[in-house]
């Protein structure tokens, strides 16, 4: 077929399957401003920032116009500039303008574009009624006064996550983003995944910060402070701190946390190894009895809450294993019973904040995890400490948990838990079998992955879903009668590497996946059961308390 072109600002750009003009224009090296456009969400066309001028002088929204051969468009004309400035000024008119004390200061698209387009004053008074922030959720905070009604959060919550906690309500100038009947977020179907925060261009949706209680504990010399770092954090934090996205900077994180004052620093990968041990045992028992199959993974707290709210009928299928974060925490609290001890978990996740507050994980009024710090939260603390991250020398985590396996580290990527469990389940413990197990189909960022693996006299049918919308699709198939033996579910698309607490990956999730698989390859131990620390832990700390320390229960919410 003959090549087809669109002329963008006088330059011919080839059409190569782009769904809309916007993608094509970006290919031409022109950054069209947008608020409401995200390639993974449906096209909404609300913000009107991406308008372009056609050869007859009329305006079209680039995000919702398919490219046609022979089109001639301009992206930067007097008319367009005036138009965009007007939109920005009107958005700012009703917007809280306390930028300096906003959580999203310097990371806000509205602030950014206002600067880019030289908005030097707003002619209109702010007539928006004063609204209270919704701080009811332990995971996210919603501030309507900073909302520009782009609808990104609504589409993320409904289309990608199938949660539907929020939607547009009311009309015209009274329109707001709201839960049903304006209920507090904690009483809505929200599962705390934080994906709405990831797409919000302004400070209308931000993460719930626990920075102050953490500083208090660090500054109190009578308190022993310990911290654990989840696998996915190490490959996502660097980008904001002068290191490449996807590069494993675990050693630097350990060094930074020690400088901030933590007494002991541990790697959640170790308790991911524990999870592999416990979950595999559970899987084997269920395969033998044939009861409660498929086994569905339990590491992801947003998925757990989703199941508790939407699919209570599946609760018996979900593994009773605590998440790696809670396993690590209960073991550490058990080991530090006699001291004043404050435990922090650094997580790629916002839902972990809810998990830490679950009553199952509070023993005699003491939370096993006292505070959860997201990756973004840790970046803030590191900056606040004045630590120059990129210059830090890497350090190792503390004994006795210093050896972790490669199986545990890949928990941070979709398919990782499955692969880790299969390494334990498979009787072939050779190095070459690791390669075989790596290529079953569980790797990659697709939303739903399925494969079968021979086991005894039959095949095990396995599904891996990431993104709750994808999980829902698998659940519906399950309920329509399809048989599965093992289902891994992660609430965030792509797994924890793309968690709601992570800095935006700007579509480069793959770099983070590569970083984790590389960390696995570089591990001395590749299988959870070969980790000498695990055997030691069972013998000396967990003893006969495996059930009490490592397992939990769920309930309908």
């Amino acid at each position, binding site marked *: 077929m003959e090549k087809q072109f669109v002329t963008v600002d006088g330059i011919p750009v080839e059409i190569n399957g782009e769904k809309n003009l916007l993608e094509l224009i970006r290919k031409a090296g022109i950054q069209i401003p947008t608020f409401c456009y995200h390639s993974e969400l449906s096209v909404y066309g609300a913000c009107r920032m991406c308008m372009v001028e056609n050869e007859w002088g009329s305006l079209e929204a680039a995000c919702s116009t398919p490219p046609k051969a022979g089109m001639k468009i301009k992206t930067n004309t007097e008319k367009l500039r005036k138009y965009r400035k007007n939109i920005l000024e009107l958005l700012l008119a009703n917007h809280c303008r306390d930028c300096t004390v906003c959580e999203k200061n310097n990371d806000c698209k509205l602030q950014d574009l206002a600067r880019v387009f030289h908005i030097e004053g707003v002619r209109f008074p702010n007539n928006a009624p004063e609204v209270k922030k919704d701080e009811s959720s332990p995971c996210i905070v919603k501030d309507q006064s900073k909302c520009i009604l782009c609808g990104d959060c609504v589409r993320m919550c*409904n289309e990608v996550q199938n*949660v*539907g*906690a*929020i*939607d*547009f*309500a*009311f*009309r015209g100038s009274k329109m707001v983003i*709201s*839960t*049903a*009947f304006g209920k507090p977020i904690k009483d*809505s*179907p929200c599962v705390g995944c934080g994906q709405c925060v990831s797409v919000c261009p302004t400070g209308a949706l931000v993460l719930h910060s626990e920075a102050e209680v953490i500083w208090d504990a660090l500054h109190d010399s009578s308190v022993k402070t310990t911290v654990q770092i989840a696998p996915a954090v190490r490959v996502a934090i660097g980008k904001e701190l002068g290191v490449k996205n996807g590069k494993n900077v675990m050693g630097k994180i350990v060094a930074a946390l020690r400088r901030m004052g933590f007494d002991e620093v541990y790697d959640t990968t170790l308790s991911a190894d524990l999870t592999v041990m416990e979950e595999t045992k559970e899987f084997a028992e269920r395969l033998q009895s044939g009861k409660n199959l498929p086994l569905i993974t339990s590491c992801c707290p947003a998925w757990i809450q989703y199941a508790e709210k939407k699919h209570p009928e599946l609760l018996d299928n979900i593994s009773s294993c605590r998440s790696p974060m809670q396993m690590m925490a209960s073991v550490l609290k058990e080991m530090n019973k006699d001291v004043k001890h404050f435990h922090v978990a650094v997580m790629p996740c916002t839902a972990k904040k809810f998990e830490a507050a679950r009553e199952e994980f509070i023993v005699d009024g003491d939370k096993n995890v006292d505070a959860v710090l997201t990756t973004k939260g840790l970046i803030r603390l590191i900056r606040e400490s004045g630590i120059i991250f990129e210059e830090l020398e890497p350090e190792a985590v503390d004994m006795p948990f210093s050896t972790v396996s490669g199986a545990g580290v890949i928990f941070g990527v979709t398919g990782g838990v499955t692969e880790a469990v299969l390494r334990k389940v498979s009787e072939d413990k050779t190095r070459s079998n690791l390669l075989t197990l790596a290529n079953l189909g569980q790797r990659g960022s697709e939303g739903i992955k399925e494969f079968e693996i021979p086991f005894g006299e039959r095949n095990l049918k396995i599904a891996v879903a990431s993104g709750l919308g994808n999980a829902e699709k698998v659940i519906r198939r399950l309920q329509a009668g399809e048989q599965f033996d093992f289902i891994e579910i992660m609430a965030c698309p792509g797994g924890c590497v793309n968690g709601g607490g992570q800095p935006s990956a700007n579509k480069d999730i793959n770099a983070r996946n590569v970083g984790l698989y590389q960390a696995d390859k570089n591990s001395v131990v590749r299988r959870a059961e070969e980790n000498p620390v695990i055997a030691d832990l069972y013998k000396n700390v967990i003893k006969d308390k495996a059930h009490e320390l490592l397992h939990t229960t769920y309930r309908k919410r």
Partner: protein
Amino acid sequence: MENKIDFTVLDQAISEFGTEKKALIAILQRAQEVYRYLPAEIFPYIAEKLDIPEAGIYGVATFYENFSLEKKGKYVIKICDGTACHVRKSTAILDAMRKELGLSESKKTTDDFIFTVETVSCLGACSSAPAIMVNDEIYPTMTPDSAVELLKSIKEKENV
């Protein structure tokens, strides 16, 4: 709650209009017709049957002026404030009716849930301006006095 919600109304509407998303507005209209408002209790029920999140239904219910989340009176009186009625002094009719019933801009329904007084932008009855509508019936060329008379006759009928 003074009276329990009768869900058979919804079941009937759902069997009539189906469970596709497009049936939502028709079902809400039926509910509004029967209950005279959209009680909060019906939201989770419809949400489950139609597989639409409650927040989404709330969005639709708050978008359209015709839906009400508050219980309305037995007699919903709509005073037209379109151009034709407005220039023929519909505001005076509104004031008179509010005064007679002790209502205001923010309080639209009487405590005994007999009357609701609200304004609409046009009833499409401009030739009979100023017009008001009581439930589904149009009353043409009203005056403040005739409006109050009308209220009194309804009160008599209702024994209040």
